[in-house]
């Protein structure tokens, strides 16, 4: 990745009450942004499909009487990424990374392209963005970063271990970043949602008990953020579930495949 130059051109002062959502079309990112808008935050949505995000931005402004803006960003396209980081010349109070790609496990087992795509979208591509804002926030000694990972990152399973591995990397990355930035008054929060009904998961069946509602999850994220909770597993049932799964001996875990 090419470094973004001309950093001195940036408006380095942390903007009060601006929340930037990377993945402005993701259901989870959008739902969380509504919570912050309700709290008076100006909302910036960055992602693909500007026209879609513009509709959401208008809705946010109409409902909560806060400013909203949209920014074109395709994280799979290096030029688009650099252009975004260059043109977005400010430091928001909160950055939320909400891009996720479930991918196709079976395809990834035989195709390095699909495997790379899963790892890159969920993990690698976020690095330049998070680095960029983390460094600026560190300098300001002010800011918040919320990284949406997944409970799938807690233990790799046969059905989705490419996705799980990438999410696991996010968890470790966020953990390290949190430790580093804790010295600079920058708060890093990891959110590990369980199964939530969104467009990413629309074709997957799951027992009703384990299906999270995206609006409720967003409320949980918001209230946990206010309490400065560092790691949030939500919905609550997944905390119980993974308490069990994480403590299963590997020999037993292997046998649980389906």
């Amino acid at each position, binding site marked *: 990745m090419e470094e973004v130059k001309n950093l001195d051109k940036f408006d380095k002062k942390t903007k009060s009450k601006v929340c930037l959502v990377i993945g402005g079309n993701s259901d989870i990112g959008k739902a969380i942004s509504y919570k912050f808008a309700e709290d008076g935050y100006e909302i910036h949505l960055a992602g693909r499909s500007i026209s*879609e995000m513009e*509709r959401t931005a*208008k*809705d946010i402004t*109409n*409902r909560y009487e806060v400013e909203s803006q949209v920014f074109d960003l395709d994280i799979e396209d290096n030029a688009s990424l650099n252009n975004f980081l260059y043109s977005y010349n400010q430091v928001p109070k909160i950055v939320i990374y909400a891009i996720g790609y479930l991918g196709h496990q079976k395809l990834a087992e035989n195709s390095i392209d699909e495997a790379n795509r899963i790892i890159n979208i969920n993990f690698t591509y976020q690095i330049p963005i998070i680095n960029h804002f983390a460094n600026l926030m560190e300098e300001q000694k002010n800011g918040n970063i919320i990284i949406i990972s997944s409970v799938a990152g807690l233990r790799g399973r046969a059905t989705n271990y490419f996705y799980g591995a990438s999410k696991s990397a996010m968890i470790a990355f966020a953990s390290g970043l949190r430790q580093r930035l804790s010295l600079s008054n920058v708060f890093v929060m990891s959110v590990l949602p369980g199964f939530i009904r969104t467009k990413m998961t*629309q074709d997957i069946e799951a027992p009703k008990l384990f299906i999270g509602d995206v609006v409720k999850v967003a409320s949980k994220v918001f209230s946990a953020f206010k309490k400065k909770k560092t790691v949030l597993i939500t919905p609550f049932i997944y905390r119980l579930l993974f308490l069990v799964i994480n403590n299963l001996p590997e020999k037993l875990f292997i046998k649980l495949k389906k």
Partner: protein
Amino acid sequence: MKISGWGNYPCIDSEVISTNQIYYLQDIIRKKQSFIPSGLLRSYSDSSLNSTTLSSLKLNRILSFDNINQAITCESGISFQDLNNFLIPKGFFVPVTPGTKFITLGGAIASDVHGKNHHKVGTFGNFVQSIRLILASGEIIDCSRNYNQDIFKATISGMGLTGFILDATFRVQKIKSTNFSVITKKANSLEEMLELFNEYMYYDYSVAWMDTSEFGKSLGRGVLILGKELEDNSFELLPNTKLNMSFMFPNFALNHITIKLFNSLYNSISYKKNDFIANFDKFYYPLDILSNWNKIYGKNGFVQYQFVVPREHSYKTIKNIMQIMKSYKQSSFLTVLKFFGKSNDFYLSFPEEGFTLAMDFPIRINTFDMLNKMDDVILSNNGKLYLTKDARMSKEFFESTYSNLNKFREIKSIIDPNNKFSSLQSKRLGI
């Protein structure tokens, strides 16, 4: 996934597609062969059912609000509850609302809904300024009174059959209060009731509850409920307190005796209070406090029969209908009478000037037989039935009662020649 309308009849398996990505929706519409847009499924029977339904519920964004011109643009899946919550603190309200707030904007347009103020302002469709529609071809078009006028007139009241309503702009009403001064007038007979409607026509809001368990001299007795908006500048949103009926009542729970009991009880309670102040929620949406009240009819479900007949035929029609009901030993749990003002020019719009009566019947062996008999009375008195409530009318009956049907069919054949937008109802009635 199993879905049904508010009457729980019929209940079918449907692939429900719910998305907020417009390009994805366009893609589905281009590729699939037969589907119907759906919302909160408050139409009573099969008008929003098909093997594939395109749910609008994730499309609920408010795209613009202009408080000077009193116009709002929203996506079609927004509910009236959501709209009211947005509008009330600003001193506005939806211009027309049916007796439940759990409907979507798209549904309100597709059914061209009416409310307690119909005799003064007409239907919801009268307030719609423009609509953006995804056609069967996947193309997105605008329509209004000035542009694509025929499509506009077919879409309002069009039961979702002209295309998928993406968003719409409509005029909202300015309110001076969320409180209503309510006056009730008791009628001891049908004659008295119809006269009361006449006498109090100047009230902005009117609706009557009718006791259908009484025949003979007090046939048609009931209570006329009149409302007027206060001017006290109080704009209050009530917290959501709801009683949830989460279980199905057994099919026999509603029988002749319980219905009679309920009706007599209602009648005697309503005598006591003549005038009172009611919040908009209680005034417009009395049944919404009981969510899923439809479950009291049990698993078999129920049908609602709502007809309108011209004023001059009203008395004899209602009397005949009640007699048929009596001969079938049925009575309606909740019966609502209302006077409609002038009709409009939307092709499949229901209201015509005259009286409209809505009755609920649990589905029993003889229910459909009884309704067929009632149809004969409605037909011979130049009446018609409300598509949004209908579960069973015949194609012939429908064709001879909706006078603008051919205009609708003509537009439909141009914009959707393969009938991709279709529901169980539209197939049944050949709409």
